[in-house]
């Protein structure tokens, strides 16, 4: 007989001592310039901005603020490189440069992971085990396509688009840079990349890698800045292609701004994925999948499984196990190797998340948070779940981009599908069941670009990623990811 007393105790007892990753081997400069035309150059305005460590609020470095003049310089450098050495180079040789980038990232892996964790707040374990290896693998994968493009598009010959303007977000800074730069270069384009303003450092370290790898100047240009810098890139007439990853709101602005221009674009935007657990699922592994789906990377994931649908007959069991599992998640210093949930990326983002916690409670949802300690300084949010909410609640409809899960029950397959699709978003979805036929029916019915069956938040350079509906247009990764950077001709 289950009683409230049959509870497990997770606090106190044997605790893990701090296990900080060492930082004495990494090199972070006091100041970073713009990387244009193969050199590090000062910004036209002479202005710089701080980048801080969200776990300590301490400044890490200062980076250049690129204005329209700097962007113009970068685009011109990219165009020069495109017309010059890059398009004249044999594709196999182009590929070798990209292989070099992959190799150097592997060699400097620990430094990259540590800086990523410091700059953005994600746990070192994730940066070390997921972000950096995947970034290197992405360069490795696309390097191999450079001289094989004729096999990817039957009946068509291909040519690069030209200069690609690429704007990336703060949740996976290095990995998103890899997702953008690798395929663009492999297809023969040159790039102007703008990292997010709160996480510029690994992009600057990537600039150093590009320089050390000996790529011809101007093939990769990196300009740091915020929204205005991004707008300059989007509107610059010398850019042939825009690739953007970020919020749906900004994606709309970009698509509108590009109306009437000849620029091609791909957009990878927000999501509010349904993670669906059937009664015949492997329940304990499904609970782990919930945790990976919403608490991985502090929930700063566009494809996060932020709406849980659990079949009613196992709902009590699943929620109970989820709560127990939440108690074992360690929120804290991102540089501690045992940290599971790091710092929220910025004060602004934390305020946004907290406003949703407020909204969720006001809407009548039952909020539950784990009981772990959090440090005094820095931006933190404990893992949170809402029960007693439904499709009409804002916390269920809107993307929170934090470690906050909205839980609903369902009774039938059709109900689950209907509710999963009942959203303007369509980036990803999850289904947990032991029955293969149900998996394939789910994948047929859910309108999302990535369906994870009995797993979640799995990424691979060979696997295409991207959304339906307002989650964006275009795919990154895999053979299909080449489409974004090539013009096809009969």
């Amino acid at each position, binding site marked *: 007989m289950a009683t409230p007393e049959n509870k497990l105790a997770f606090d106190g007892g044997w605790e893990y001592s701090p296990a900080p990753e060492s930082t004495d081997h990494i090199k972070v400069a006091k100041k970073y310039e713009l990387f244009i035309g193969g050199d590090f150059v000062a910004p036209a305005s002479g202005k710089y901005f701080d980048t801080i460590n969200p776990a300590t609020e301490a400044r890490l470095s200062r980076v250049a603020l690129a204005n329209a003049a700097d962007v113009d310089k970068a685009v011109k450098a990219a165009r020069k490189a495109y017309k010059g050495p890059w398009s004249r180079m044999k594709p196999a040789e182009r590929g070798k440069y990209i292989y070099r980038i992959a190799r150097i990232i592997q060699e400097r892996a620990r430094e990259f992971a540590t800086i990523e964790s410091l700059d953005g707040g994600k746990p070192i374990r994730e940066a070390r085990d997921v972000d950096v290896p995947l970034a290197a*693998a992405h360069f490795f994968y696309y390097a*191999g*396509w450079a001289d094989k493009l004729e096999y990817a598009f039957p009946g068509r010959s291909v040519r690069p688009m030209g200069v690609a303007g690429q704007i990336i977000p703060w949740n996976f800074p290095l990995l998103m840079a890899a997702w953008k730069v690798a395929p663009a270069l492999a297809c023969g384009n040159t790039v102007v990349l703008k990292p997010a303003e709160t996480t510029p450092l690994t992009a600057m370290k990537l600039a150093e890698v590009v320089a050390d790898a000996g790529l011809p100047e101007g093939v990769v240009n990196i300009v740091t800045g915020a929204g205005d810098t991004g707008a300059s890139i989007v509107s610059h007439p010398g850019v042939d292609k825009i690739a953007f990853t970020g919020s749906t709101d900004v994606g709309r602005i970009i698509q509108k701004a590009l109306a009437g221009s000849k620029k091609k674009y791909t957009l990878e935007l927000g999501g509010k994925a349904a993670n669906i657990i059937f009664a015949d699922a492997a329940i304990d592994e499904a609970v782990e999948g919930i945790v990976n789906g919403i608490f991985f990377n502090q929930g700063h994931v566009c494809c996060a499984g932020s709406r849980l649908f659990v079949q009613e007959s196992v709902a009590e069991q699943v929620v109970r196990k989820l709560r127990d599992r939440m108690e074992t998640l360690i929120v804290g210093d991102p540089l501690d190797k045992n940290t599971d949930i790091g710092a929220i990326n910025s004060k602004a983002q934390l305020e946004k998340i907290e406003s949703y916690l407020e909204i969720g409670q006001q809407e009548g949802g039952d909020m539950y948070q784990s009981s772990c300690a959090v440090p005094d300084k820095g931006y933190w949010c404990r893992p949170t779940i809402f029960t007693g909410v439904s499709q009409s609640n804002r916390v269920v409809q809107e993307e929170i981009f934090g470690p906050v899960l909205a839980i609903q029950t369902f009774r039938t397959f059709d109900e689950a599908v209907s509710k999963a699709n009942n959203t303007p978003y369509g980036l990803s979805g999850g289904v947990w069941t032991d029955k293969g036929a*149900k998996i*394939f029916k789910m994948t047929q019915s859910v309108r999302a670009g990535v369906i994870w069956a009995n797993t979640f938040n799995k990424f691979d*350079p060979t696997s295409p990623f991207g959304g339906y509906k307002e989650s964006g247009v275009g795919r990154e990764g895999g053979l299909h990811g080449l489409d974004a950077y090539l013009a096809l001709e009969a």
Partner: protein
Amino acid sequence: MAAKAKQQDVRVPVAKTYKIYIDGKFPRTESGRYFTLEDGKGRVIANVCRGSRKDFRNATVAARKAQAGWAGANAYLRGQILYRIAEMLEGRREQFIAELKLQGATQHAARKEVDTSIDRLIYFAGWADKYQQVFSAVNPVASSHFNFSVLEPTGVVSIIAPDDSGLLGLVSNVAPTIVGGNTCVVLASESMPLSAVSFAEVLHASDVPAGVVNIITGLRSELTEHFASHMDVNAIVFCDGARKTAKTVQELASDNIKRVIARADIDWSRESSQHPYLIRDTQEVKTTWHPIGS
């Protein structure tokens, strides 16, 4: 009293012994036999192992043992290993150029052959995690089934490398065979066998698991029939053109329906001779059906 003779400052170089490469080790041929390789002026360059059918048999046992593990390694890892082979070969560029020259090539031809071999390895490394995407299919069957076809390696492949190429011909056939998850036993060129043995050293330094590639030197007249007839070999890649021998190979291969892949008269130095169909040649197609329903 005689004056002490002045010592010459001459260093005696250490000559290399060429062995064969089986299961990640460098044994001599179990038969103890050898044949000599001579330069243009009739001087002996090296004693080369005259491999026996028992060597070949031992190599196929090693190849079979290694095959499941190699095929089970993920594509990314196989690609990384092939890239590593290229890195190692690049590091020994001068050695390989010198060795090809010793076997009769000009400086220019030797350099081109080594550089092309390195680039060819990189080419096939890049296919490791892509050929599946190009050659697989999801098939839209009429019934309510999810139906997909994927490539799977055929297994153990015996390769008779081109005789007229010391290095590039061997590399051009080994790389596409192993990148697809097969393991192989290679009969090196008879007239230019040295680079094959040195290449085995490169493989050995590249994290290639033992048994994935095995290299034997010896006489075609003695070994071809075993490469063609062994019942535990799934495919034979045959690079020498003589029609009579080709017919014999085909006949011997038929006993276990060995896949016969003839690649005769190919100029391996041309870019057009590298392509992913060389990978597909040693792959099977597996199709799976699964219901779609609740």
